[in-house]
């Protein structure tokens, strides 16, 4: 236990010497900022694996027939790729990295409500990741079920599924604890005078997200436990030969996994809602409407899971109910887009690199979201369900949405987090390659899906060849861009120019503390007056 008086306010969290030294000063630190960086680095590690697997798939698909691997390997590759990307990158992604770092500062608190639980959730993250990776390295072969673990295949396959399931379970636990921490922090630790309607939008989006994490994640936990028990004992709940219903598995899986997609996108939208007003030097348009749409997405998003199951043989009533709810949940997203664009109206736009990422976010998010409408309609989903069209949809929106927002956010907050500025020219070059590569990589998949090419296909008919070549080429361009972006950032941590306190002239609280912030963020807890607000330019 440290006492308050010992913590100096002129030493940044990066230089602060606590009880422990070296690496231990990180992995035993309960400082939310250090935990944020722990997440950042462990995610980057997993992310590298995921990207390499993605590239391997694209290389395999460059031509029909065998290119570099066997069918079984391919199946294992997309499974591990999906599990890593979903459970280890985009679900924890923005909340764990930027939420942890910025949430307490943005609401004027010294730390999150339960710093130790916060560290614990990082331990769970690492444990879960290790378990998943161990299923690759040991046992009778890498899991090959797809990230959806559909029954009954998931208890028929001879591969090493249990560690992966267990890993996903623990990752879920990590996610729950983060959400719990954020809710309590937001309820209890806002700066005096910061009413709910004065809270910045990024914390608001984390609040919505946290509720989904809390209420949806346990369902997947218990579902995975049931699959494990089915594998070990054969209890029969999903096994048709024992009376179980495999479609019920799909219900339970998507009861979590659909809300989970909003766990991914809401914080991403929150970050965009910070970046746009700052670089427009203008109050955000429709503050309350954006909050309302965040809460509406979080709430309605809980009830649309069935749109992943339109061909699984649900009752007709269930099908059109889910279809109509799916369409309703699209509306709040549309409202957000309109508000962001309106914020740029009569603004004074400073087109720095975070703003460029934010604008491209809006563009790819629109494509991804609008293609979601095709999937939400019954007739068209029956046609393109489980084809490359779906793969295009979710890469545009998951990776396009979350990825672009992540890069926007890291360029936006980098000077605050590390106290250094990156090279702005290289950042733009990387962004350009990345965007062009991204569009070349995933756009052809829409076309392939309309031709009828199923997803999770190792091999395909010759008529799908041309579009696949284009897509594979795009994956290289994009990775080139990614490398430039990442190397530029990495170099700047050490050698970038010293950053100012408020390089973008932002109005939220994080821009009032030194860069990088001291250990307990604020010497004195800030107080919001009547006239203060996060976007008062």
């Amino acid at each position, binding site marked *: *236990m440290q006492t*308050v008086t010992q913590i100096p306010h002129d030493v940044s969290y990066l230089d602060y010497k606590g009880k422990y030294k070296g690496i231990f000063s990180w992995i035993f630190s309960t400082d939310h900022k250090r935990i944020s960086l722990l997440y950042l680095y462990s995610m980057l590690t997993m992310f590298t694996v995921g990207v390499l697997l993605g590239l391997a798939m694209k290389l395999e698909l460059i031509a029909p027939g065998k290119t570099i691997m066997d069918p079984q390997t391919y199946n294992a590759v997309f499974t591990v790729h999906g599990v890593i990307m979903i459970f280890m990158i985009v679900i924890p992604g923005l909340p764990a990295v930027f939420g942890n770092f910025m949430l307490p500062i943005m609401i004027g*608190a*010294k*730390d999150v*409500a*339960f710093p130790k*639980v916060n560290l614990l959730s990082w331990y769970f993250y690492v444990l879960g990741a290790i378990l998943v990776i161990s299923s690759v390295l040991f046992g009778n072969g890498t899991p090959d079920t797809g990230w959806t673990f559909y029954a009954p295949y998931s208890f028929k396959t001879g591969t090493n599924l249990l560690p992966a399931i267990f890993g996903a379970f623990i990752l879920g636990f990590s996610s*729950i604890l983060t*959400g*719990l*921490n954020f*809710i*309590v922090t937001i*309820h*209890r*630790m*806002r*700066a*005096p*005078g910061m009413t709910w309607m004065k809270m910045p939008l990024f914390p608001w989006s984390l609040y919505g997200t946290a509720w989904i994490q*809390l*209420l*949806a*994640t*346990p*369902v997947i*936990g*218990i*579902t995975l*436990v*049931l699959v494990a*028990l089915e594998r070990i*004992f*054969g*209890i*029969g*709940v999903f096994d048709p030969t*024992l*009376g*179980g*219903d495999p479609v*019920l598995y799909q*219900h*339970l899986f998507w*009861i979590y996994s659909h809300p989970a997609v909003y766990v991914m996108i809401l914080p991403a939208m929150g970050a965009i809602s910070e970046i746009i007003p700052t670089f427009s030097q203008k109050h955000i348009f429709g503050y309350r409407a954006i909050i309302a749409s965040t809460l509406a997405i979080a709430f309605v998003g809980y009830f649309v899971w069935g749109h992943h199951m339109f061909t699984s043989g649900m009752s007709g009533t269930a099908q059109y109910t889910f279809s109509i709810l799916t369409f309703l949940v699209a509306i709040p997203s549309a409202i957000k887009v309109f508000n962001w664009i309106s914020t740029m109206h009569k603004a004074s736009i400073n087109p720095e690199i975070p703003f460029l990422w934010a604008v491209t976010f809006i563009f790819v998010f629109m494509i991804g979201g609008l293609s979601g409408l095709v999937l939400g309609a019954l007739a068209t989903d029956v046609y393109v369900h489980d084809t490359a069209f779906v793969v295009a949809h979710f890469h545009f929106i998951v990776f396009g949405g979350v990825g672009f927002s992540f890069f926007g956010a890291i360029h936006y907050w980098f000077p605050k987090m590390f106290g250094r500025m990156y090279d702005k020219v290289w950042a733009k070059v990387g962004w350009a390659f990345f965007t062009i590569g991204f569009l070349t990589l995933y756009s052809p998949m829409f076309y392939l899906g309309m031709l009828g090419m199923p997803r999770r296909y190792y091999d395909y008919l010759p008529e799908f060849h041309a579009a696949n070549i284009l897509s594979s080429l795009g994956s290289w361009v994009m990775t080139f861009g990614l490398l430039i972006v990442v190397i530029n950032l990495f170099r700047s941590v050490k050698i970038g120019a010293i950053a100012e306190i408020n390089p973008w002239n932002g109005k939220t609280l994080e821009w009032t503390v030194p860069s990088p912030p001291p250990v307990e963020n604020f010497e004195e*807890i800030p107080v919001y007056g009547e006239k203060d607000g996060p976007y008062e330019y």
Partner: protein
Amino acid sequence: MEHVVQHSDPHYDPEASKLGMWLFIFTELLLFGGLFIVYSIYRFLNPEAFQMAAHELNITIGAINTIILLVSSMTIAMSTSSLQQKNKGLTVLLLEITIMLALIFLINKYFEWGVKFEHGIWPGSQHLINDMGQGEILFFGLYFVMTGLHALHIVIGMIIIIVALRRVQKGTTHADRPSLLENAGLYWHLVDLIWIFLFPLFYLIH
């Protein structure tokens, strides 16, 4: 708004820890919620088989266990009152009674499961798969999973109560810092709450 409580004692905010505990309880409720969904669907699909299978369970043991849990819920609730009245001895006694009751619950459960095992009924057993219908297999599958998970929660609850008991004895949990005990109480009531639904769903469907 005087949220500046942070200044005086940054690591203690009883409202925050209570809120945290409630949120955790929500996740536990939904964990069981998933199982209740599975249960209700299969119950709906196999109504007769579920009723038949329920005859295998002993209402008396179930009722006794229900009452045990209810009483233990009362004792732990009383212990929070006695802690606030600064009656340390009584608090400790009430907690000890709670733990004893939890133990009795588990012993009962042990014998109840034992009887099932003797009859050749356990998840994936030959008797179950060869001689019983699909509805029965599902019923017993769910019975073992749900009561098993509940028993696991009893064990966790006991551990939390034991920790709280030690803290009360040492004096680190006292009338001005009752959070740990109150949270242990909340958790224990959650365990009770779940049993309140498990009991009629498994034992009382005749």
